[in-house]
């Protein structure tokens, strides 16, 4: 089963390698991966007088790594615990069982000859894709959406011939309003 984890880490050299190495070394699976520096929103919540290395290295900040992985409940528990055990890992967020907003981004270049251009654009319109580049024989689309939408679009455009594809891993955020009866509330 597909699972999504967000891992907040100190943005220090080698930290991604530690996280990825943990997965490969212990035989866990990474389906997609997404990394970027973010704002350290939790910093104020912890004690203000942190005399750690953060103060010594000025540029110390945090990155968010979002990983889609697979495994049963026991494997997921191990993955989360093992991630916590890595020293630069500050927080692991497991989105299992909670309502989330999820987004992926994709750039897709599809063959678009003569009379097919119309249909390609119509599909793009239905899925609210953005045309970001046009060539004589192809159209490049920017797609954002959840995993299922992105998969569906790839499926649709396959028959036209996909010339090029770039896809970022999934990002996720907890929804502000959780549905009734949510066990995690």
């Amino acid at each position: 089963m597909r699972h999504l984890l967000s891992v907040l880490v100190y943005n220090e050299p080698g930290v991604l390698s530690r996280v990825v190495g943990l997965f490969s070394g212990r035989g866990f699976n990474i389906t997609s991966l997404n990394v970027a520096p973010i704002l350290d929103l939790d910093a104020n919540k912890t004690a203000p007088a942190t005399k750690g290395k953060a103060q010594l290295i000025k540029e110390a900040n945090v990155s968010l790594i979002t990983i889609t992985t697979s495994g049963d409940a026991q494997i997921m528990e191990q993955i989360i615990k093992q991630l916590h055990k890595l020293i630069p890992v500050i927080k692991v967020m497991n989105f299992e069982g909670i309502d989330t907003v999820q987004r992926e981004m994709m750039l897709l270049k599809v063959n678009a000859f003569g009379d097919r251009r119309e249909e390609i654009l119509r599909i793009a319109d239905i899925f609210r894709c953005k045309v970001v580049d046009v060539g004589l024989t192809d159209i490049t689309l920017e797609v954002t959406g959840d995993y299922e939408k992105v998969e569906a679009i790839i499926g649709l455009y396959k028959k036209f011939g996909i010339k090029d594809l770039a896809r970022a891993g999934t990002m996720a955020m907890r929804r502000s309003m959780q549905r009734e009866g949510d066990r995690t509330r």
Partner: protein
Amino acid sequence: MELTGAQILLESLKREGVELIFGYPGGAVIEIYDALFHSDLRHILVRHEQGAAHAADGYARASGKTGVCLVTSGPGATNAVTGIATANSDSIPMVVLTGQVATHLIGNDAFQEVDTVGITRPCTKHNYIVKDIKTLAYTIREAFYLARSGRPGPVLVDLPKNVMAARHEFTWPETVGEMRSYNPTQEPNLKQLRLAVRRAILPAKRPLILSGGGVIRADACAELAEIAMQYQIPVVSTMMGLGSFPGNHPLWLGMLGMHGTVAANKAALEADTIIAVGTRFADRVTGKLSAFDRDSGTIVHIDIDPTSIKKNVNVKYPIVADCRKAVLKLREELAAAAGEQNWSEEHKDWLDTLETYKKDFPLSYAKNGEIKPQQVIEAISAIAGGDDTIITTEVGQHQMWTSQFYCFTRPRTLLSSGGLGTMGYGLPAAMGAQLARPDKKVVCIAGDGSIQMNSQEFATIVANRLPVKVVIINNGYLGMVRQWQELFFKRNYSYTNMEAQPDFVKLADAYGAEGYRVSEASELEPVLKKALFSPNPAIVDVRVAREENVYPMVPVGAALDNMIVL
């Protein structure tokens, strides 16, 4: 005052209470060695970097302090890797200092450059490269803190040559500060502990304590033993836990697992409640998981490392905490919840059953005219055993016989590579242990194969006048592999015959140690007495029965009660 990086490093080590380091010089650490020569830190010059890492490990296991070793870049670091991985598997607090090429050369495939941090990432608790002298003192502080706190382990600090030569003001950070991303749970969850006490431990008809290496690491042995005795709960231990409970006590059932006693293995399967402390339920301990991980028994699992819990077996009452703190609280809670029961009466049936197993299936071996390896271990235990002796082992049959036939009564008296199973560990570890505990008798029990893996350290032992004793259980085979070949590969002894070996008596002589050979059973005791009580380092080469097997044995993948018994 401005100090060089090397001076800051040594000053930081002193602030951490380091008295002794094991090391080997080289180009990338020459600045450090230059400063070391004028320092009052004691340095032991090993003969191979693997020896340095194992010696630091042995020092740590024997003393409870953090072991330190210092090696150069490239091959120095890679040679140390086996020692680092060994310490990592067995949760040994250790700080490994490696030289590195100058920062501007990193990535250029410079002379003696390897990606030390990359290579050691999966086999350390954490590692660092110090690229800025400003962070040096703090990094050393944090490295020691990480090595000995939580679940202990090796921490490596990679030190580029130019950083060691640079100069900077030395300021020692008084505290590590709060680490947001590292905060091991120390105190047990009381609610959970109370539930375990009231619902599992006190009502149990067939309780069992499983004591692991974590009990020794956390100094919780006496307190755990007190619980066992007070509530008449029998005790088994993993190999790493040997010495955590007195091996001569009636409640002691022996080691469990692949070469565990019948009583211990049967107890583990028949117990209705297992109180497992400081163990990770390794495959060598549990045997076939589906048999161990049964519904009928309840497991209360205390460990500092959350990843150890529910990794292999299902646990009803997980308690993440420092073993000592948890055991102290457990003792309190038991006292508060228990009535005035007569516990030997409460557990009488259980204890009687186990007593029958002990009587019916004692550890044994067939005596004939030959010297049996088990007999050698028994002789060492009888002659030199006791509180003042530390045993180290290599890996293989002799290690298992030592675990079975030597009576360990105190913690930190068995130093052995459990998790990684590193041949070549015992001799350098003995050296480290002897330096940590000059007051103790240190005996390395070795196989003829293992001893050849790090025998160069005899030179270090003799050079430092360490009275380490080595008893080689010499059967001319890589015995454990030969045993498997005999039992599971139709006696196809593929490359396990090692009859071609040095004359160990002459080897001892060549290094300047005492050498003895025992070929007749009648010579065994007198020679051991002479050698083990000599003030000098000594090697005793004991020619034992060649094809003796370690029994009981649970084949790989079999349930614990599926034992091959003699």
